[in-house]
């Protein structure tokens, strides 16, 4: 059940609350879930939780006694419009600062020479990358061509071996010992199986 939309076109929770107060859900097991969800909603709206519940509900009674102990503090927080149980944690302040920081990011200022230098470096980098990419493609194409030529030669040389070579195995997997290259080698570089 959503707060603002009802199920199957029925009235929404908000409407129900407005119409009948909190009495309509008192007997149901939904009441605990409603209290939890209301907590989230009141957080979003910035209203303290205990203010939205009447003290006559099951859950409301328990909360009321706890609230009465720190009532003065919470009332002060409520008057500011901020949820009281959140202000004690300093991380929330830090998070707000990061999200809504006043200092915008500054872009670097380049002179004419700087710009020319930058464009030259960028162009050279593109050329190097293009050459490397073409070399890799050429290598790949050469490997494929060699394999294709080998299959054609095998077909002419031996029919039986060719047919066996064309068999594709199902579920081919790489062995676990084929490690990914790292920047520096391991302490024991190669296992000689002695």
């Amino acid at each position, binding site marked *: 059940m959503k707060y603002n939309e009802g199920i199957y076109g029925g009235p929404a929770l908000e409407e129900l609350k407005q119409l009948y107060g909190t009495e309509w859900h008192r007997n149901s097991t939904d009441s605990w879930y409603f209290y939890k969800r209301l907590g989230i909603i009141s957080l979003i709206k910035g209203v303290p939780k205990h203010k939205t519940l009447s003290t006559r509900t099951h859950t409301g009674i328990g909360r009321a006694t706890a609230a009465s102990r720190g009532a003065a503090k919470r009332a002060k927080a409520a008057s500011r419009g901020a949820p009281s149980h959140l202000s004690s944690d300093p991380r929330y302040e830090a998070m707000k600062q990061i999200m809504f920081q006043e200092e915008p990011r500054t872009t670097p200022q380049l002179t004419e020479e700087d710009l020319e230098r930058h464009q030259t470096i960028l162009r050279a980098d593109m050329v190097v990358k293009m050459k490397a990419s073409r070399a890799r493609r050429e290598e790949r194409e050469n490997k494929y*061509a060699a394999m294709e030529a080998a299959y054609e030669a095998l077909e002419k040389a031996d029919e039986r071996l060719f047919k066996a070579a064309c068999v594709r195995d199902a579920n081919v997997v790489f062995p676990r010992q084929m490690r990914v290259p790292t920047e520096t080698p391991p302490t024991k570089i190669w296992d000689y199986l002695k």
Partner: protein
Amino acid sequence: MFRRSVVATLGQGVRLFATSSVVRNTSVRAGVLLQRDPIITQQTSGFEAASDRYFEWLHYISAEKFPRDFFFKKGSSAEAKWMELEDMRASEWYFDKSSKPEFKSVKRAVVDEDAEAGDVDEVVSRTIEVQPRETEADKKGDVKSLERKLDRTLYLLVKDSDGKWELPAGTVAEDEVLLDAAKRSLKETCGGRMSVWMVGNGPVGHREAGANTAFFVKGHILAGQAVADGKLAQDFKWATREEVEAAVSSDYWQSVKGMFSSV
């Protein structure tokens, strides 16, 4: 497989006298292109390395202000390390020297003297020992070692009775397939103390030499070492692409070079 070959095979239909070496009088040999894959990554050098540094610096100076109070606890060793790095980086500048900002240290005045002393010990105990990229085998130039040239692919070459360096190859038995023949001939030539993963069922390249045609199946050595017992192979070595080109005959190289990786 390859469309042309498959279509041709289907088009021929069933052949009643399908025995080996019918169409062309060559005997098939099965060989192995055995490679040890690179163990370490390639390191950029020269222009590439310099341009990488430049672009990294450009990102650094254009970045958002680093929220140090969010990431570091005041007076922690992590903060001390970061402050050290930041002050070191401040000297880096690739634009016009006149536009370089004045050096302003990010370090905070140390309040607690004892805490600073403690931090130094902590830093020392955390250093990680990193293995060198150049090994003993590199320095000695030991071509039989599998720990040489860690950033390159090494290929197994064997020296036959004539003194020619070639990829290991052997004959194919009557009831054998190419893959099994390749594995068996590798074992016979170089010994069985190698853990090898063979790729697929078919060849990656071939070499036509008169009456023989050798078809090479690719394999990756995962562990172990080759042994040249002198019967089928006088000697062996693990060579990079350039070293293979230098060792084998020029027409042999022209036939097989397509199979080799450049790295």
